[in-house]
């Protein structure tokens, strides 16, 4: 049976991007999109274009910064990287996500 594709939950895209940048280091938009798709085994229904407003928002909040550089095949691309604040934000959001999912799991598994 083909696996069902899951929609990206609102608000979690930020966390995904931050984590990706943390894991991969500076990356351009295509790279981030590929990484997310790869990790999720292509199960995530991601419109790659939606990355860009998200990246802008993250940059406006000061969690990531961007710089123009050359990509692997010598193409001009914009590279994003985590800032110190971003690192902090990632840690906080990871923690609250884990807490939240833990509570949800408990809730859903309880029968009574």
């Amino acid at each position, binding site marked *: 049976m083909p696996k069902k594709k899951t929609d990206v939950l609102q608000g979690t895209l930020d966390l995904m991007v931050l984590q990706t940048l943390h894991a991969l280091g500076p990356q351009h938009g295509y790279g981030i999109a590929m990484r997310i798709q790869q990790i999720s085994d292509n199960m995530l229904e991601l419109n*790659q274009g939606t990355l*860009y407003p998200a990246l*802008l928002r993250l940059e406006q909040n000061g969690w990531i910064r961007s710089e123009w550089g050359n990509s692997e095949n010598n193409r001009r691309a914009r590279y994003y990287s985590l800032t110190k*604040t971003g690192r902090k934000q990632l840690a906080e959001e990871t923690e609250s996500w884990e807490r939240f999912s833990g509570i949800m799991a408990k809730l859903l598994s309880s029968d009574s």
Partner: protein
Amino acid sequence: MPLLRKLMATFSRSHRDAELNEEIESHLAMLETAHISRGMPPDEARLAARRDFGGVEPTKQIYREQRGVAFLENLLQDLRLSLRSLRKTPGFASIAIASLAIGIGANTSMFSVVRALKFRTLPVPQPEELVQIRSFSPEYKTFAENFSYPFVTELARTQAFASTAGMFPTSAALYADNRTTQAPVELVTADYFRTLRIRPLLGRLLGPSDMRHPGSDAVCVISYSLWQSRFGGRSDIIGRPIKLSGIPFRIVGVTQKGFEGSVLYWPHDIQIPVSMTAQFMHDFPWQSANSTFLYLFARRHANMTIAATDARLKVVGPQVGARIRNPKNPDQTARWNRFSVMPASKGPGLMEDKSMQVFVLSGVVFLTLLIACTNIAGLLLARANSQERETAVQISLGAPQIRIIQRYLVESLLLAFLGGCVGFVASNWITRLFTYELQIEYLNPKLDVGMFLFSLAACFGTALMFGLIPGWQASRVNARFVGLRDQGSVRTTRRQSVFRKTLVSVQVALATVLLVGCALFLRSLQNIQTVKLGFDPHQVLLIDTDPSQAGRPEANSLAIYRRILERVRTLPGVEAATLGFGIPLSGQISNTSFWSSRMTSAKVPDRINASAMVADDFFRALRIPMLRGRDFNAADLRKGQSVIVNRAFVDYYRLGDRALGHRFQFESDQPAIEIIGIVANTKMQSVREENSPAMFFPITDDSRGSLELLVRPHGAAASLLPEIRRAVREVDPQTSITSETRLDEKIAAQSFDQRAIASLCSAFSGFALLLSCMGLYGIAAYSISRRTQEIGVRVALGALRRDVAALFLRESCWITALGLAAGIPAALALASLIQKLLFGIEPADPTTIAVSSVVLAGVCLLAAALPLRKAFSVDPAEALRGE
């Protein structure tokens, strides 16, 4: 520089859009390449890439919205924070806003007034075509503005101008509706209205036909404002009979609204034909070529430039002069034969040129604006420094550089905006103050938008520059190196602090210039008010009456005047009473001229001498010392063959010991006149004049025209007035009093210009001083607040407060001293420009400069010492503890 690029990108939308496009293209290309490498054909690969990406346009749209919204959100947040922080430091905020308001408001209103004064022209079509004609005598090196009636008419015939007009300003008692009031009147030639090209509102205007019968069928034209104010705008005004100085006239026209005569700041409400001059002015020979009494102006041909008109006049002028030459004195024309034209869009230039005063006032206001700007700069720099710690905290928490700069920018702009608003309101008030002081309400100056925007831009620019630079500097600080704990070690670069102190020195220098200027004007004013007049005007009453109305022949006026004089002399409160025309400094001008050769054998240039017609006891009434000879007696007052002159007259005409008893003739066919008395010099027509020759003629049985009653009371003038009124009524019930003034008050009013400038300058100097004090206070307060701990330690260790104070004041002393050192030479340099406005004082007057410097230094040091009081009041133990 990445920062700059970021800044630019923030504000350049298309640039950002282009970048996004590039990024998306790059992404799509990479997707395409991936698909191709997996074996898809290129076109399919491209489509697949697009599918993977999702909608490009929607993405761009969401992106743009996100960017826009975020910018707005940030902006609002910055605004809110700025407002809050301004409210937390009300002192800083109010001083900054006040400085801005003063700079913007004062500047704007000054320029509104200047504009109204300078650029207003006569309310006639094509005022730039109007010119005034003058003649110049190379021998005497002066200009003459007055010409004779034959000259005017002959000049008109040469067609050198489109039309030519002559005008003589005077005033008359206007009798209508059983009331008599004074009204300013212009005697005008035939083409006066044609030259001005104005139209009548009602009826008609004067023209050549009205000049045809000299002395009879007198018609006149009145102004719109007179029609409204004096005649209540009544609809039957045309044809209405009135009396001017006892002579019956008929009103034939009302001029258009806004026209008040041919001279801009000197309204004349009535125009009458010059053919009535003889009746009006004591049988004055107005048709004689010797009577140069008319101001001459003309409208040049539209197709001739001023230069061409001037050239033409230089040719025809002497020709006309030769044609009307007085055969008895042919040299006259030769002496005054250099003619020239001057643009006269404000009318013939009779008024004293106010442009000098206006220039000075503008300079004053500009200086104030400069001081205000330096104040703002200093304040903003100090504030940025005090906020450095807060900024450092923000940076260490990860705020991007651009946000920090934005924060500073928003706060500076907010200040500038608030200052601009207050300044706008203030400028309305200040404009009203100016127009009241200069008494030009009728000009109704409108707010000069250009100047407002300029001042606003200047202040905005200053706020921007001095808000941005420290903001940028602060945002570059590496947060690691900023000691966040210890209040004292927030780093101020030495360069910054020197810059701020220099700013305050500059302020002090500018304030010095203003203060010295103000002091000079104040002393000049004092001089004018205490100048020796040569007579005593205190409590002296001037009473104008009009006995010539109600159809009485002129001869009876004199009889009535004499009876009034007799009666008033019997009043107990009267010390002395007399009659006169051309009483010194009363505003009534009377002149005599004759060829010097008739007076003396010494070769002296001809001149116009001030003169007056007086009754007996005149000199005693005004307390003018009689140096030699005697006053007029009854015989003199009947026959009029005597004259009294002043010392300057004797000296000018080199009469020496022969003066008393000297006899001369004005014209060879007239009886000889004898000098029977010599009096001390007095000012005659202006307080500022040098002592000039004057002649006093007796009022004789032949005298015509209006005379003023001059009364010196024993005590106060006010108490005598009701009795004088009763006396006049008893002598002749039909004679009414048209004005009652005090001579000393009238004279005081003449120094109005000086007073206006002095008071306005004082106001601005006050502002400047205040601003400088604020600047100094700010600097001192800042440096002291940073070292409160140090002060506490010193005091705790037993240092005398006096010594600690001296330590801190030394810095302020240096700043003030430097400011004075720069300001005094600047003040001297500028003062030499205003020399013409000063009276009785040199621009480099050492006392003035010394006093101003001391005052400035004192006030500044006081301002610097104030924060110390606060510092000393802090408990030393607390200070030691630190924050």
